[in-house]
């Protein structure tokens, strides 16, 4: 009994920091202009504007997740064969990149690709095509990729390190090329971990606000920006509508997480395929 009391601070923190805000979001989301109703939800779901914001956000998140995973896999495979020094440097660099988001990232992107950015001017001076508007979905995608690739590399590297070298050697003795080995064995072997990391990346992108707001303001319609303008908007403010959108965002995030848990659970019934005494 005594020992259980030790968990009390954790439970209190969980209640105060998660349960309380979450329940207030849920309760308030059903409060439409003073009445208890689904009014906020019907408004969000029937509004072309908010539909568009969800579609834009899903699209950017999915695209940058795929880009992040693909580059992350290639980098993790490349790093696997490198010495410890290179790997430590790359991972330190990756963890910096993964956390380099928000205003500093937006500023960096603007300095490089903005109207008077280094590359924009360089490309213009050289008379090359390729200048683009950084304050757009393309700019946002580039900004997201910056931390998505870094985060993917950071998370995928240990997963790829766990593939036993012997398996790779067995394949190479059979005459299987490295590319074919990773395509047919290495990556499928790690499918579950890769899916889990992809979901994390996806959630990461869906919830990004600071980078988006600092780079494109309200000109690109993504969900987090829509929520923020409802909460602190100067034209019209409707915090309860924002609550409803937040909850819908949470549901969108929960769908892939639960789906992957179910898939993982089914696989685990047979025993973990990646476990076994393969070191």
């Amino acid at each position: 009994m005594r020992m259980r009391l030790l968990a009390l601070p954790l439970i209190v923190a969980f209640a105060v920091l998660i349960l309380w805000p979450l329940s207030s979001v849920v309760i308030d989301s059903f409060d439409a202009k003073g009445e208890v109703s689904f009014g906020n939800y019907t408004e969000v779901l029937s509004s072309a504007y908010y539909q568009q914001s969800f579609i834009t956000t899903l699209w950017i998140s999915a695209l940058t997740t795929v880009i992040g995973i693909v580059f992350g896999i290639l980098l993790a495979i490349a790093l696997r064969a490198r010495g410890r020094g290179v790997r430590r440097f790359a991972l330190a660099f990756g963890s910096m990149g993964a956390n380099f988001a928000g205003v500093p990232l937006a500023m960096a992107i603007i300095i490089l690709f903005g109207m008077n950015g280094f590359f924009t001017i360089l490309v213009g001076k050289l008379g090359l095509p390729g200048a683009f508007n950084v304050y757009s979905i393309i700019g946002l995608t580039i900004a997201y990729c910056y931390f998505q690739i870094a985060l993917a590399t950071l998370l995928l590297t240990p997963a790829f390190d766990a593939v036993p070298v012997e398996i790779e050697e067995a394949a190479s003795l059979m005459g299987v090329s490295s590319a074919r080995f990773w395509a047919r064995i290495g990556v499928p072997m790690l499918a579950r971990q890769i899916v889990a990391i992809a979901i994390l990346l996806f959630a990461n992108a869906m919830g990004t606000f600071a980078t988006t707001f600092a780079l494109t303001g309200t000109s690109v319609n993504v969900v987090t920006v829509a929520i923020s303008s409802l909460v602190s908007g100067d034209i019209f403010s409707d915090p309860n509508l924002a609550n409803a959108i937040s909850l819908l965002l949470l549901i969108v995030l929960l769908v892939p997480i639960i789906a992957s848990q179910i898939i993982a659970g089914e696989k685990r019934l047979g025993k973990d395929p990646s476990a076994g005494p393969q070191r």
Partner: protein
Amino acid sequence: MSYLTIANVSATYGAMTILDGIELSIGQGEMHILLGPSGCGKTTLLRSIAGLTAPSGGEIRLGDRRIDNLPPKERGIAMVFQHYALFPNMTVRQNLAFGLEQKRLSRAEVARKVDATLAMVALEQRADMRPHQLSGGQRQRVALARALVLEPALLLLDEPLSALDAQIRKRLRDELKRIQRESGLTSILVTHDQDEALTLGDRVSVMNAGRIAQTGTPREIYHRPDSLFVAGFIGDGNLLTPDEIERLTGIRTSGSAIIQPQDLRFESVNGATATMAPAPDGEIHVQGVVTDVSLSGPTIRYLVEAKGLTLKVEAPNRYDSAELSTGTTVRLALRKGDIHVVPN
């Protein structure tokens, strides 16, 4: 005639010398064992043959080809690893077929070869299972089948039985021997287990500190070790210095000698007198006292104190034969020819 020839192969890792001028030739169809304590370089030698480690010097020839400068896949060598190294996302059948598909064989040909090889290791029933559904012994049979199906010019086995428990290890050892004999595949097996080496090998190379200490048939290695290292590493014999031999038998030898425990026989128990001098028929008799008795499966191991020396003596463990208790005075008989002087 030599099929695999290893000439002056060396390997270094940083300042450490892992292999120090290895010379070895192996005949076609031979099962050759590399035996040695861990860190002796046996695995490095195997990996150098496979091309997974680049030796720093020397030459390796397989058949009439020089292979040490070829990439692993062009050497025609298959390898079985200690921890199976099966492809976990593929079924047993797919594991076997993967290498064949690489060779661009027709689908029917692949299926025929896979089925034939699975039959050889008695795993037809498990063809559609994945590695994690199999026991350790079955996994290693799949790994063996995966190597055999490619019909390699040389099969390398890196401690293939060490990850298995005793019973399965023994059964798989016999099966490995049968399959190797049937296929006639030239094989090199690395192990640190001398029982495994002596039962499986046509010839055994005992390695120590990056060198081959001795190569010979299991009988030669066991009964006629040509160095103190081999004598100490193989079996569990009585390794005695010249002085000790003289004290025990009255014979002066030119160097240390080994007496195998089973060559010391109990001649009479209690009250018998010991003869110091060699008997006319070349037998030596020594009196001693039993100080320890332990049962190890088919044999009983005794420690006998004689002339201030503790001797290991082994006798067959039969149900009807009386076990000697500690404190019993015994007379041991030894043939002169069973004292093997180890050349230094």
